[in-house]
Every structure is written in structure tokens, then in C-alpha cells.
């Protein structure tokens, strides 16, 4: 790959970046209608995002170590954002995270909600009734089709 250049003298990073399509989409959403982003600039912005991730991770890691904890938690990330001057992001991150939790919980609840409170017999009855309705509808459709048929009736 000749489009990647090494950013530092340290260990050569693998070609790990954020999905280009997603980056492009997010950038385009921000762009006013009269401005476009050059492809190379998109890639550049993607690289900046990767740098940002490293920055936050490193800071969050420090925070985690200070507390003698082993795993980096959400609170360490929040603290890192604060310390690096990105405190304005915190409310949005918090909100998005809370919404995500809520949506996940609702989804789980929804999928678990198979129990409608009706007995299997009642459900079968409902189903049978619906099938009967559908059959009746189909039957009446057939009749209408014959009546309105395109073939002119042969008249004497």
C-alpha cells in the first residue's frame, strides 16, 4: 500500500482505519450543498479520527492506571475527554450512550415479549378466524373477476 505513510518512528501500524464509506457518509452529512470533500481529504480526516482514538485511549489508560483498575471503563473515557479539552463532547456522548442503552433494553424486552397472555388455544382460534377471512376474501375476488371478465359474452 503506497497511500499510507508512517506517522511515527514507532511500530509500523497495520492498515487499521475506520471504514471509508462511513467516514465519507459522516463528512457528507456535514457538508453544505455547495462544498464537496476531496477523496484524499476524506482519508486525511479518517486518519485524524484514528489519532483521536489513540489520544483518548492513552489518556483513559492513564486514568485507569491511576485508579489501579485493570479495565478501562466508560468513566475513564469521560475523564480523558475532559482532560484533553473535549469536555463539550461529554453531554452528547453521555446522551448517545444512554439512548443506546435504552434502545438495547427495549429491543431485548421486545424480543422477550413473545408471551402475549393468550393461551395457545385462543391463538389458534384467532389464526383460524383470520384464515377464514382471507379465504372468504379470495373467494369473493374470484367471483368479481369472473363477472368483470374481459371476454365479451357472445351475444346471438
Amino acid at each position, binding site marked *: 500500500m503506497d497511500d499510507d505513510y508512517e*506517522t511515527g518512528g514507532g511500530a509500523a501500524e497495520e492498515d487499521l482505519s475506520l471504514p471509508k464509506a462511513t467516514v465519507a457518509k459522516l463528512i457528507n452529512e456535514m457538508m453544505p450543498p455547495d*462544498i464537496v470533500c476531496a477523496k484524499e481529504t476524506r482519508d486525511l480526516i479518517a486518519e485524524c479520527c484514528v489519532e483521536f482514538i489513540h489520544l483518548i485511549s492513552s489518556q483513559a489508560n492513564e486514568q485507569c492506571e491511576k485508579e489501579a483498575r485493570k479495565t478501562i471503563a466508560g468513566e475513564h473515557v469521560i475523564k480523558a475527554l475532559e482532560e484533553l479539552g473535549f469536555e463539550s463532547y461529554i453531554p452528547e456522548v453521555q446522551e448517545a450512550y444512554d439512548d443506546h442503552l*435504552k434502545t438495547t433494553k427495549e429491543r431485548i424486552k421486545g424480543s422477550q415479549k413473545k408471551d402475549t397472555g393468550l393461551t395457545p388455544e385462543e391463538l389458534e382460534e384467532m389464526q383460524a378466524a383470520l384464515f377464514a377471512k382471507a379465504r372468504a376474501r379470495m373467494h369473493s375476488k374470484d367471483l368479481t373477476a369472473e363477472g368483470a371478465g374481459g371476454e365479451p359474452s357472445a351475444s346471438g
Partner: protein
Amino acid sequence: MSETPISATQAPEAAGPTPTKVPFPVGRVKTIMREDKEVGPVAQEAALAVTYATEIFLQYLAEKSFENTRDDGRKVLGYKDVAKAVADNVELMFLEDIIPPTLPPRQASEAKNKAAPPADP
């Protein structure tokens, strides 16, 4: 006969503005975080928080950059717009290493030659 719904399991989805769905794959973000050997295990919630923050950051950077494009009366967002955004905003200073402020053409091509083989314009 009252119409009974086929299944009552269809819970209405939360209406209203969609919360920021995670745009970037959280797994990828986590892997990027762990690229730094010093960074230890990362909780899923932490990776999620970083993912959201990165999205906000991208939007912020894009916005600051295209403002420069507009101020310059151009229609295409280019390197120098991003570089100017980095130079003008203190939170973006950490990017100075990878996006140095635009240099005069000669210096810029010299620096480029050092970093990578020159590409044909």
C-alpha cells in the same frame, strides 16, 4: 367481529429523532485503541463512548475545515483547510504532527519527498 391484531408482540418503536446509532464498528474502534501496547483491556462501554466521541470529533473537524474552504471562496475541501483548522483550534493541536501547517511549496515537496515517494500530479 372486532379485529384483533395477529400478534401483540409488535411493540411500537421509539418514535422521534433517532439517537446517534453507532456509526463506526465498535469492534474496530476497540482494536484501534488496543494498537497501543500500553492500553490494557477495554470495557465495551468504554469502546462505545470512544466511538461516539470519535463521531463527534469527525463532525467537528469537518465543520472547522469546510468553514475555511468557504472563507477562501472555494468549493472543494482540501488539505490546507484541514491544516488551518488544526492550526487554529487548540484542541486539534495533537494533530499537528500528522497535519503540519501548510508550508511554502518548496518546503512542502521536500518534506513530502522525505516521507514518501513523490506522486505524479
